[in-house]
């Protein structure tokens, strides 16, 4: 995976977030404050602008620039959390011009660690971690088992989507939905839903299904 692969991922993610903007906002209206889709859409638009203005030369630079733009433009909790995820991935990849599937796993593990450290959420708290963590685990396993990139990312995407669906019966313990107590049960977490979109975008960056 080279720089253009990661640029393609960002583009796919931006397109997906834009297409699902209203859906994410509706999920957020149920248990949050009805702005997740709008905020992420604004953030990814800013990311694409930054990447167009100062084209990065390495995969790591793509991700660090993307993360910084999200932190600067999104606000709310999702800006710092997604921003940190992309920045940590980028830092983990360093200056390398090519990324192996094993490198990608390491980078995503660093991203997950950064998000959990910043937000303090564990799996089961009904946050984006509930989609992120199983996706990273599934990817690591698939890569270790020798799956090709497309299949490994397909497995990761399926795990993220399943993780997001599994937030429905959970009671939120972090973020704004936690104020609702038991009333947060029965709704999909918007952050987990957007994380699943971003993993699906990563899968599409690897080529047609």
């Amino acid at each position, binding site marked *: 995976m080279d720089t253009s692969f990661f640029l393609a991922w960002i583009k796919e993610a931006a397109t997906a977030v834009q297409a699902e903007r209203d859906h994410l*906002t*509706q999920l957020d*209206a149920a*248990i*949050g*404050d*009805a*702005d997740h889709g*709008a*905020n992420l859409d*604004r953030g990814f638009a800013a990311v694409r602008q930054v990447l167009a203005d100062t084209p990065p030369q390495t995969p790591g630079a793509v991700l660090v620039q993307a993360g910084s733009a999200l*932190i*600067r*433009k*999104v*606000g*709310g*909790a*999702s*800006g*710092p*959390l997604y921003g940190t995820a992309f920045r940590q991935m980028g830092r983990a990849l360093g200056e390398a011009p090519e990324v192996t599937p094993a490198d990608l796993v390491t980078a995503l593990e660093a991203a997950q660690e950064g998000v959990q450290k*910043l*937000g303090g959420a564990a799996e089961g708290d009904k946050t984006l971690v509930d989609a992120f963590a199983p996706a990273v685990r599934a990817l690591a396993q698939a890569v270790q088992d020798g799956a090709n990139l497309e299949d490994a990312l397909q497995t990761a995407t399926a795990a993220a989507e399943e993780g997001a669906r599994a937030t429905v019966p959970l*009671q*939120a*313990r*972090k*973020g*704004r*939905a*936690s*104020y*609702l*107590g038991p*009333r947060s049960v029965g709704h999909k977490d918007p952050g987990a839903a957007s994380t699943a979109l971003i993993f699906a975008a990563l899968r599409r960056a690897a080529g047609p299904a």
Partner: protein
Amino acid sequence: MKKLINSVDAIVTDTLRGVAAAHPSLRVDFENRVIYRRNAPHQGKVALVSGGGAGHEPLHGGFVGYGMLDAACPGEVFTSPVPDQMIEASKGVDGGAGVLHIVKNYTGDVLNFEMAAELCADEGIEVASVLVNDDVAVQDSLYTAGRRGTGATLFVEKIAGALAETGAPLAEVARLAQEVNERSRSFGVALSAGTVPAAGKPTFDLSDTEIELGIGIHGEPGRTRTTHREAREIARLAMDAVNDDVPLSGDTLVLLNGMGGTPLLELYIVYGEVAAYLEEKGARAVRCLVGNYVTSLDMQGFSVSVCRLTDELTRLWDAPVETAALRWGR
């Protein structure tokens, strides 16, 4: 949705234009989205910076001025501002005595202010932070993001702002801000939800016979829903929640706050019930504010905030203030 806006995307920018036009005592940085006192920074004075999502006006921009904040940064509607804004605001107001960040306890606000404080330290600006978390509706702190910051934010900004004007050092201003927060409790009730412009419809639906108890200020639903009833009984539900958390006694400062869509007439009716409740508990509202101060767009309803006063807090509350939304003594 029927709103007095030009476009959904321009809401914050257009609001700032209006604020700049209405208040010559303020300076608005449109690019960074910061509202400053016109003559900031003040050398040797601890500076107060707050910020939060738009939609809560007059919080925070309406509290920028003598005796309160030095700068405020509005985010998008109900979305915390970004670190760049807070850093810019802190740089713009630092008069060498340090900057106090007043942060309402929401995950987004906390994360963005934390990042800003770290980056300010890198630039040599001394920053202390106080977290406001006065909302008793959020009960179980171990299993939630913790209590929300609501009406007591106004108390913290006013009282800490008054102390800062006396030339008190940063640590002392921060300590007092913390004390005001610890002495304050709030509870909110909604008769209807507000409409976030980007969503275009109310964030939750309440029928004519229902009210929502324990609401926050971002249109999120509350803890429970119950049947609508007389103002006296609704005031009692709210005050019971406050009193159950910390028994009310002695002299208090009360904010009877409208959520944005409720007439002052009704707010005064509720305030009358709140004052009677306090008397019944052997407490007294020796200072009060009734009106729309910490709003949630066009939500109908109120929140009540009570701060148990000390002589020092009463004196600082009475100290002169000159902002768009609060002004006395000057």
